[in-house]
């Protein structure tokens, strides 16, 4: 796994593009609100989280992501991503 600039690369043989959105405290931790990721077929949301976690010490304690959404729907973190997906990790919500 390599990490160049702001882009987060999970697999070198990537042939799919996934858009990662980051909100609230996660955006502050990661330092950006959106990243374009090139990922290999078979990559799960959990795989992306694990890569994110490896790069940010405040996330080290979190083996699992808080909540995961793909294309505006809550999904299990094990969900396999597809080309063009919009992925978001949802920090615990506090609306209302």
């Amino acid at each position, binding site marked *: 796994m390599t990490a160049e600039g702001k882009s987060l690369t999970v697999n070198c043989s990537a042939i799919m593009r996934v858009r990662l959105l980051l*909100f*609230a*405290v996660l955006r502050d*931790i990661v330092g950006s609100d959106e990243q374009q990721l090139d990922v290999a077929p078979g990559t799960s949301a959990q795989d992306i989280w694990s890569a994110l976690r490896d790069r940010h010490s405040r996330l080290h304690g979190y083996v699992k992501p808080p909540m995961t959404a793909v294309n505006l729907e*809550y999904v299990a973190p094990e969900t396999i991503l597809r080309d063009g997906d919009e992925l978001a990790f949802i*920090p615990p919500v506090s609306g*209302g």
Partner: protein
Amino acid sequence: MSFLTDIAIDAEALSAEVCRDSDGAVVTFSGFVRDHHEGRQVESIFYEAYRPMAENEIRRVVESVAQRLPEVRMAVQHRLGLVRVGEASIVIACASPHRAEAFDACRALIDGIKEMAPIWKKERSPDGEEWVGWQGGGRNEE
């Protein structure tokens, strides 16, 4: 129609919007920014949303309540951006021929929206700003 708004919410207009001549009861819930939270003084709250998903999730909550309580008409407005102490962050209005359903729907809506809608708040106090709730730095598994 959008459930999210960047300007002050008009609660009276929201009630008027849902209430028909056949309705005998309107129940409203308004959430306000409080001047304190967990011992800290609060001056304002900044609300951020994953907008398209928040719209979807709120619509989903509304639809599930509508399916269970078809006689109730419902309106929801959640404010985003900077909201000062004493201003409403959310207003919900439920109108129904009878009051039991209106109370039930209103409570189910605020509970469901608070649980599901991807919306976050950052508290601004004299000491600085802080996201409410989860802030990283802990752990979720041994």
